[in-house]
C-alpha cells in the first residue's frame, strides 16, 4: 500500500472513531441554513440566486472547520515530523490530506444539501443531478486550496483563526462561480449555458492542486 493510502486510511479511521470534524461541519451548516431561513417569510418562495447563495454560504463556512482539523491533527506530538521523516513523498502527503478534506466535505454535504431542500422548498430538487457535479468540482477546489493553506497555517499558534483569513479571499472567485452556476441550474438552464463555468471551476481545482503538490514540501519542512 502506498503512503497516500496509508495516510488516507489513518485519517479517515481517526475521523470515524471520533467524528469531530464531520459533526462540527454538518452542525454548523445546519445552523446557518436554519438561521438564514428565519429571514424568509413563511410560505414565500426564494429566487434561484438567493437559494444558491444560501446553500454555498452554508457549505463554504462549514467546510473550513474540517479543513483546519486535518492538518492540525499532525501538530500533536510533532507527528508532522514523523511523516516527513518517513519515505512518503510530500506529493503523497498533500494528495492524502486533500483526499481526506474532499471526503469530509462530501460527508458534511450529504446532510447539509437534503436539509437545504427541506427548508427552502423542493422546487430546486429537479436540479440535483447537475448539482452533484457542481459540488464535486467545487469540493476539489476547496479541498486543494484548504489543504495548502491549512499546511501554511499549521505551523502557527493560531492556525484555526488564521486559516479563514487566508482561505476565503483566495476562494472568493471559486465561490462566486459556484453560486452563479448553481443559480443557473436552479433556474433550469441547460448544461450548454454554464459548461464554460464548469471548465473554469475545473481549472481552479487543477491549478491549486498543482500548487499544493509543488509547494507543500517547502511550506511544511522549515
Amino acid at each position, binding site marked *: 500500500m502506498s503512503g497516500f493510502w*496509508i495516510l488516507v486510511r489513518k485519517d479517515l479511521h481517526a475521523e470515524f472513531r471520533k467524528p469531530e470534524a464531520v459533526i462540527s461541519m454538518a452542525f454548523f451548516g445546519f445552523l446557518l441554513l436554519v438561521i438564514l431561513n428565519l429571514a424568509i417569510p413563511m410560505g414565500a418562495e426564494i429566487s434561484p440566486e438567493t437559494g444558491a447563495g444560501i446553500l454555498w454560504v452554508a457549505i463554504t463556512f462549514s467546510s473550513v472547520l474540517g479543513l483546519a482539523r486535518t492538518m492540525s491533527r499532525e501538530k*500533536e*506530538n510533532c*507527528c508532522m515530523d514523523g511523516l*516527513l*521523516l*518517513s*519515505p*512518503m513523498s510530500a506529493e503523497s502527503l498533500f494528495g492524502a490530506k486533500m483526499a481526506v478534506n474532499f471526503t469530509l466535505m462530501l460527508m458534511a454535504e450529504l446532510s447539509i444539501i437534503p436539509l437545504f431542500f427541506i427548508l427552502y422548498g423542493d422546487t430546486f430538487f429537479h436540479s440535483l443531478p447537475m448539482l452533484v457535479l457542481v459540488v464535486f468540482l467545487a469540493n476539489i477546489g476547496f479541498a486543494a486550496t484548504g489543504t495548502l493553506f491549512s499546511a501554511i497555517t499549521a505551523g502557527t499558534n493560531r492556525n484555526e483563526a488564521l486559516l479563514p483569513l487566508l482561505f476565503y479571499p483566495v476562494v472568493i472567485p471559486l465561490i462566486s462561480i459556484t453560486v452563479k452556476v448553481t443559480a443557473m441550474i436552479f433556474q433550469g438552464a441547460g448544461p450548454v449555458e454554464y459548461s464554460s463555468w464548469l471548465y473554469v471551476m475545473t481549472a481552479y481545482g487543477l491549478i491549486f492542486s498543482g500548487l499544493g503538490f509543488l509547494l507543500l514540501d517547502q511550506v511544511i519542512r522549515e
Partner: protein
Amino acid sequence: MADFLAVNNLGKEYEGRRALHKVSFGLQQGDFLSLFGPNGAGKSTLLRIISTLTSAGSGKVEIKGFDLAEEPEAFKMQLGVISHQSLLYGHMTARENLIFYGSLYKVDDPEQRAEELLRIVELYPRRHSRVSRFSRGMCQRLSIARALVNDPSLLLLDEPFSGLDQYASAILTEQLGELRSRARTVIMVTHSLDRGLAAATRVGILAGGRLVYLEERDTIDPSAFEGLYMEYVHGARAA
C-alpha cells in the same frame, strides 16, 4: 573504504545567524558518534539536516551513497530518529501507531514487527491502549519502538536520555547495545559526557556551528575529557 555516512561542508544560516559552518565528517558502518556541545552549538540543526527535516544551506549528506538531496526517499528508508517529541498519535493505540509507521516504511509484516517491538519495550500488555492514556515514560518507550520500526541502518538520537525514567533508560541502553552488536551506525547528541563516552566509538564536539573536535573514543582519557571539552567550547567562543 567509502564512508557509510558522509557529511561534506554542511552549512546552515537562520536569519543571518550561522548555525552550522562547513561541518564535515564520515562514519563507517557500526560507528557510534557521541556529539557534545553547549546549547546553541548547532547539534540539533545538524541532526535535523541529516534526518531531512531541515534543508541544508550548503554542503551535502550521503548515506550508503544515496544523496540526501537527490534521493531523499531511499535515504529516509535507512533512518531512525529519537527526538524530544514522541511523534506518536494520541488518538491511536500503541499497536496502531507502530503499524502505521511500519506501513509507511514498507516493513514486510508491520503487524508482526509492531508486536515484536511492543514486547521489546515491554508495552505488549498495553498494546490496545490509546497513547493519550500513556504516562510520559510509556510514551518514551513507545517512541523508542517507533524509531526502530524500520530496523534503521542509521539512528539519530537527540538528547535521548533527557527526561527518560530509569526503566526507559535501561531499555534504550539495552537497545543501543543491541544495535551496536548488529553494526548499526548511531549519532547521539547529548549533554551527558559520561553516558556519551560510555557508548561511543567516536567523539565529537560542536561549538559555534563548527565541528571543533573529532577523535576515536579509544584515544580519549575519560578523566581528562571534561577539561578538554571546556577548553574547546571556550576556544570556540573566544574565536
